Structures are given as structure tokens and as C-alpha cells.
């Protein structure tokens, strides 16, 4: 369809850039919305003001993050068409309805109740406000459900046929499409990642304030809650990640070969390569540090199992090992650190020193942004590992692109980079500023709560006259 390699590369960079940037925000808001629902629920149940204060504290942070997620998400709804027109035309009949369901079941739900959640505390009853918070939290979950179903279908396409125009069309109902083979694993793995990401941020903010004042009630509460989350969920994530990996091995073996850095097949037990320098050009790994047979044990649960390498895959179908090998190691390395943080906090808790060990608090602060890095690294692993296909094994990335001219994509890429770094850079700065202040008793509302005069209140005539000067 289209042969301009530069435009294709630029289109890929642009899409990768906009989608990665966008992903950061929902990775945080999915967990944060649930956290807020828990806080408000606990407040309603116990009546303890500390929960309400924490709710209001994190609500401000949620509002800023959510706004950035919304505006970067709208971009995504159109980037499929601007950059991947042929893919949109051909895969639209299958993935389009799933994305439409995401809008209908999730986006409207979140947006419809967000206004009440942010600004409605004094306008509706407590129960109704809690309901609004719940709807927003559930909306983020439903959104994850649909978009990960779409993404999984691109990784492990199922339940499709082709029509005369070459479009993918549903073959026998929608369940095989929605619940395609990799979807359940990816959904659980990603949602847990979002929860961990949020727990690490909340824990870091709590730890930061505890380092200054280890008696501060609010900081203690959120630090404790976050450390429970990390301690309980990080081990689960290790397990789920393993299952997800085995599922990938079954359906996308080339991706796992790239993750493991296995250019060559192993007839006996394959080693686990801890570190090495992969070279896509020569298809060789240099400076290798490896543990014999461990890869076979992890992937096949058998020390002597043979493992195929990328040499069994046609050269034109191999993903880039240079990217996937490293991104996978970043994700796993951070996952291990998260596991250690959780374990350390349990130890401190048992010792009755959860709020006292400075090392633990410092470690928690350091780990604050690690969830975002791990999520992005995992995302890169799975997406780059899918290459050179958009629909795995069926449709190539090169034949998916819009008929774009390189200057048009290049110019818009530059615009996206400048705007995103400027705007979301400022947004991140505001978030850090909000977090740098400890939560207070009687935490104020979000600063921009619109106060509504009652409908029957007469107009403040004086105010009207003062405003005249501005006309």
C-alpha cells in the first residue's frame, strides 16, 4: 500500500510516543480511583475524619491526573485513523465495536460522575457522592477491560474471518474475539500493575512526610495502606507475570525468545541470560552473564527441556531483541525491588517499627516513580515484541500505515513532543507540588470547587456594577 519507510518510522514513533505518554495517566488513575473509593467507603463506615482528609487530599491529585489522561486519551481515539488508516479500515469491524463499547460503558460513566465526584460533595448526599466515586472507579476498570481486549486481540487474534474487501470480520460471535487467548492474563497483569503503581506513589508520599514527622497521623495511615498493598500484591504480580509469560510462549514464542535474548536454539536445557549485549544485526549476544538451564526451568518447568531460539523464526518476522531484551529486564528488575519493598515493610510491621525505620521510608520514596517505569517497560516489551506485525502473524505494521508524507508526520511528531513535554511536564510539576504538602486535618476541598449560589438568591447587584469596568 505504502512504501515510504521514513513516514512509516515517523508514524510508529509518533504513535508510540502518544500512546506511552497517555498510558502513564490511566496507570495511575485506575488505582487511584479505587483507592479513593476505599477511603470514602472507610470514612462512611467508621466516621473517622482521617479518611475524609485523605480522600480530599488525593482527590485534588486525581483531578489533575485525570484531566491529563482525558486530553491525551482523545488523541488516541483519532491516532488510529491519522497514522494507521489501512489498519483501521481492515481491523475496524473487529476492534471498532470493542472500542465503541469502551466509550459507551466506561468513558461516559467516568465523565458523567466525575463532575459530582470533584465538585458535588456539598450538592448531593454522602451516599450519592460515594456512589459517584464508585462509578468513576468502576468506569476506569471497564475501560481497562475493553482496551486491553483490543490490545490482546492484536497480540493473539481469534474468532475472525476475512471478507471480500480483505477486512477482518467476526467469524462466530463476539466472545472468542473479546476473550481472546492472551486477554485474561493481560487484563489481570495490567490492572495489578496499575494498583501497584498507585500504591508505590501513595507509599512514597506517605514516607516522604513521615521522614519529616513520623507521628503525622495522615501520613502514617496512607503509608500503612500503601505498604499493605505492596506487600500483598507484588507477590501476586510475580505469579501472574509468570502465567502471562507462559501464555505468551504458547502464542507468541518469538516475543519470549526476544525477552530471553535467545537468538540460538538450545537442544538441551537453555540458560537464563541475566545480562548481555544483544545485537540485532549479527543476531548474537555478547558479554553474557547467564545461569545454566534456568530459562528451561522457568518456561518449561523442566531443567533439560529444549528451547527454540529466533533462528527458528524467519528473519523478516523477528522482533527487535535490542529493545525487548532490555525493556523486559527493566520491568522484572523493578518488580523484584517492589517485592523487596513489600517484604521489608512486613518485617517492619511485625517488628512494630513500620513508621520508624528510616531506611524503609527512604526506599519507599525512591520507589515512588518505579511503577510508571515498570508499566512502560512492560508495555514496550509486549508491543515491540509483537512487531513486525500490528495484528500478530496476519497484518504487518508496514502495510497498516496511512498514506502519509514524511514531512506531515514529522511536523506533527515535533508538535506532539513539544506540547506533551511542556503541558504534561507542568502538570507533573503541579502534582509534585500537591504531594509535597502533607495532608492536613480538615483538608480543604479541591481548590476550584464552583460554589453555586442558590437559584433563588437575588443577584448581587453591587458585584454587577463593580464589574462594569471590564466591559
Amino acid at each position, binding site marked *: 500500500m505504502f512504501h515510504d519507510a521514513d513516514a512509516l518510522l515517523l508514524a510508529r514513533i509518533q504513535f508510540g510516543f502518544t500512546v506511552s505518554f497517555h498510558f502513564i495517566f490511566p496507570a495511575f488513575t485506575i488505582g487511584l480511583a479505587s483507592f479513593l473509593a476505599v477511603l470514602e467507603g472507610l470514612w462512611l463506615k467508621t466516621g473517622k475524619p482521617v479518611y475524609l482528609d485523605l480522600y480530599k487530599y488525593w482527590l485534588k491529585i486525581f483531578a489533575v491526573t485525570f484531566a491529563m489522561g482525558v486530553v491525551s486519551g482523545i488523541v488516541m481515539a483519532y491516532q488510529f485513523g491519522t497514522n494507521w488508516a489501512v489498519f483501521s479500515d481492515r481491523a475496524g469491524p473487529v476492534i471498532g465495536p470493542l472500542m465503541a463499547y469502551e466509550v459507551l460503558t466506561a*468513558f461516559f460513566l467516568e465523565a458523567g460522575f466525575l463532575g459530582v465526584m470533584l465538585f458535588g460533595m456539598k450538592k448531593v448526599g454522602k451516599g450519592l457522592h460515594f456512589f459517584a466515586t464508585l462509578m468513576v472507579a468502576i468506569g476506569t476498570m471497564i475501560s481497562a477491560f475493553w482496551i486491553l481486549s483490543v490490545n490482546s486481540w492484536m497480540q493473539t487474534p481469534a474468532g475472525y474471518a476475512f471478507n471480500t474487501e480483505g477486512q477482518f470480520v467476526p467469524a462466530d460471535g463476539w466472545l472468542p474475539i473479546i476473550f481472546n487467548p492472551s486477554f485474561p492474563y493481560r487484563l489481570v497483569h495490567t490492572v495489578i500493575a496499575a494498583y501497584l503503581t498507585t500504591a508505590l506513589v501513595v507509599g512514597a508520599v506517605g514516607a516522604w512526610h513521615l521522614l519529616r514527622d513520623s507521628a503525622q497521623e495522615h501520613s502514617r495511615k496512607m503509608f500503612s495502606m500503601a505498604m499493605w498493598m505492596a506487600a500483598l500484591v507484588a507477590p501476586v504480580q510475580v505469579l501472574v507475570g509468570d502465567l502471562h509469560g507462559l501464555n505468551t510462549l504458547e502464542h507468541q514464542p518469538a516475543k519470549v525468545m526476544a525477552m530471553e535474548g535467545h537468538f540460538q536454539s538450545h537442544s538441551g536445557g537453555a540458560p537464563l541470560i541475566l545480562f548481555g549485549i544483544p545485537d540485532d544485526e549479527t543476531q548474537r549476544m555478547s558479554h553474557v552473564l547467564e545461569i545454566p538451564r534456568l530459562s528451561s526451568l522457568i518456561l518449561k518447568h523442566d531443567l533439560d527441556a529444549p528451547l527454540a531460539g529466533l533462528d527458528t523464526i524467519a528473519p523478516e518476522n523477528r522482533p527487535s531483541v535490542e529493545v525487548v531484551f532490555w525493556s523486559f529486564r527493566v520491568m522484572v528488575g523493578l518488580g523484584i525491588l517492589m517485592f523487596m519493598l513489600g517484604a521489608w515493610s512486613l518485617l517492619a510491621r511485625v517488628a512494630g517499627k513500620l513508621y520508624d525505620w528510616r531506611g524503609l521510608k527512604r526506599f519507599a520514596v525512591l520507589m515512588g516513580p518505579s511503577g510508571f517505569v515498570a508499566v512502560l517497560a512492560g508495555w514496550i516489551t509486549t508491543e515491540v515484541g509483537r512487531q513486525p506485525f500490528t495484528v500478530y502473524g496476519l497484518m504487518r505494521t508496514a502495510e497498516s500505515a496511512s498514506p502519509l508524507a514524511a514531512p506531515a508526520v514529522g511536523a506533527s511528531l515535533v508538535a506532539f513532543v513539544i506540547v506533551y513535554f511542556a503541558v504534561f511536564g507542568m502538570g507533573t510539576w503541579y502534582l509534585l507540588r500537591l504531594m509535597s504538602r502533607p495532608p492536613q486535618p480538615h483538608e480543604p476541598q479541591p481548590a476550584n470547587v*464552583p460554589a453555586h449560589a442558590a437559584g433563588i438568591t437575588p443577584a448581587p447587584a453591587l458585584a454587577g456594577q463593580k464589574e462594569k469596568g471590564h466591559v
Partner: protein
Amino acid sequence: MTDSTTLTHIWAAILAFAVFMYVVMDGFDLGIGVLFPVFGVGKERDTAMNSIAPVWDGNETWLVLGGGGLLAAFPLAYAVIMSALYAPLIAMLLALVFRGVAFEFRWRDPAHRAGWDIAFTGGSFVAAFTQGIMLGALLQGVTVQGRAYGGGWWDWLTPFSLLTGASVVVGYCLLGACWLNWKTEGGTQQHARRLMRILAPLTLAAILAVSLATPFLGNEYFERWFSMPRVLFTAQVPLVIVILTWRFARSLRRNYELAPFVLTLAVFGLSFVGLGISMFPYLVPNSITLQMAAAPASSQAFMLVGAAVLVPLILAYTAWSYWVFRGKVAHEGYH
């Protein structure tokens, strides 16, 4: 076959509804954004923004439904239109980024509030202007080769698309002013009323100009409007607009609060019907009909099940959310 035709028409109607919802709902948000600098720093601006802060996100979601729904129900049209309108579309998306974050950022950073106010206005203006440009670019037709866009990168830029761009900006501003007339009081409301007196004639002139230019774009528009017996039906559209204009002028003289907003919505609705008359049965004029672009019946049917239940539900809780924030908005929050 007839079943799938019906299905396709239903989806065309649902998408048209989504786009219309977007135009009128985000229309007043964007219009307030464009008018922002006219309002005084402080109370007036705070009031104007507070009147839309709880609802803008929901309003903008209709745009996502428009895009997502087009991909799902008419993937070919989505693919062609998004490529054809590449430049204005990217500009609109970036503009919406500035506009959207300004709602939060302007309160977080009083030192740079003036800067975020400019971002709010600039973003609103560019979004409105590019939306109008895209409307014009689509109406004038795009080049299609096979199943892809076959034109150049600046095809969208013509005097006609600039005219529709400017028209949409003016129309959104009128919607915004009418909204403020309804939702605010005192100085802000007086201010909005003065703006309405200027914007209403401008909007009418814009509608007239676009209506006069459209039949001469080719694409069989002239026949769709003026051939017998169609003209008996199509002539009702300008007729009703004349009546609505008269009612609008009256409501303005009598200082009604809600009526001007509703009447403006009705004018937008009629203009939208006019667009439908020009376009139908094409999604891309002269090259792609609804039928050609339609996703298979199984895809459209699957979504229709959901839409039939969910769209009324969405309308219900959206209405509830507006109801929660009913009444006049005051300027001071808990800053």
C-alpha cells in the same frame, strides 16, 4: 440486505446524534473559552469557568464517541477522513490538550494563571476553528483512491473551509454567551447579554454565507436542495430558521434567561439537518456512501444492542449531573 441497510441507517443516525451532541455541548464550552479574554480577570472569568468545569469532560466524551463510533460502524470512512483531515485534526487534538488541562492547571498555579487563561482561549479557539475547517473540507469533498485517501496535505485549506471555520467559531461563541446568560447573574450575565446582541447577527450571517456557498460546491448539493419535489421539504429549513430568529430577538429584548440558549440550540439543530440534506447518502461526498463504508452487519448489530441500552442510560445520568449543578453559578470557590 434490507436489514443491513436499516442497520447502517440506524448507525448513521446514532453517529449524527453523537456529533450533534458534541457540537452543542462542547460548543458552549469552547465558545466560553473563546470569549474568555473579553471577561474581566477575577470574578467574571472564575464564574464563567466554574459554570462549565463539572460538565466539560462529559461533553467532550461525545467527540470520542464520534471518532470511536465512526471507526466501528464505518471503518472505511474513518480511515479516509482521518487521513484527509490530518493537519486540522492534529491541530484540534493539540488544542484540546491545552483547553482541557487549563481547567485544572489555572487553579493550581495562580502565578501563571494569565498564561493558562491564554492556553484556555487559544486552545478553545483553535479547536473550534479547526472543527469548522474539517466540516468545510469534508463538504467540499476529498480525493479517494481505492480504499484510501489520495489527495495532498493542504487540500483541506480553501476559502470555503476558512469560511466554515470562522462560522463555527462565531456560532460556538453565541452558544457560550447564551449559556452564561442562563447560568450566571449580575455583571457576568449583563456582559454575556451584550455579547449575544453582537454574536447573534454574526451567526445568522455565517449560516447564510455557508448555505449560499454550499450548493455551488458541486457534489450534487444543488440538486439535493432545489430539485422538485425535494425543495418543498428542504425549503422548510430556512423558513424555520427565520421564525427562530424572530423568537430569539424577542427573548433577548425581554431578557429571558433560558430561551435564547434553547433557541440557539434549535438553530444549530436545523443547520445540522441542512448538512444532512446536503450529504446523505454519502459519508465522503461523491465517493463513499454509507453502504460502502459500513462495517459488516454482525459488527453493527453487536454494537446496536449495547447502544440501545447504554445511550439512554448515558443521557439519564448526564441529565442528572447537570441537574445536580443546576441554578446560578457564583464566582467564588473555596480557593
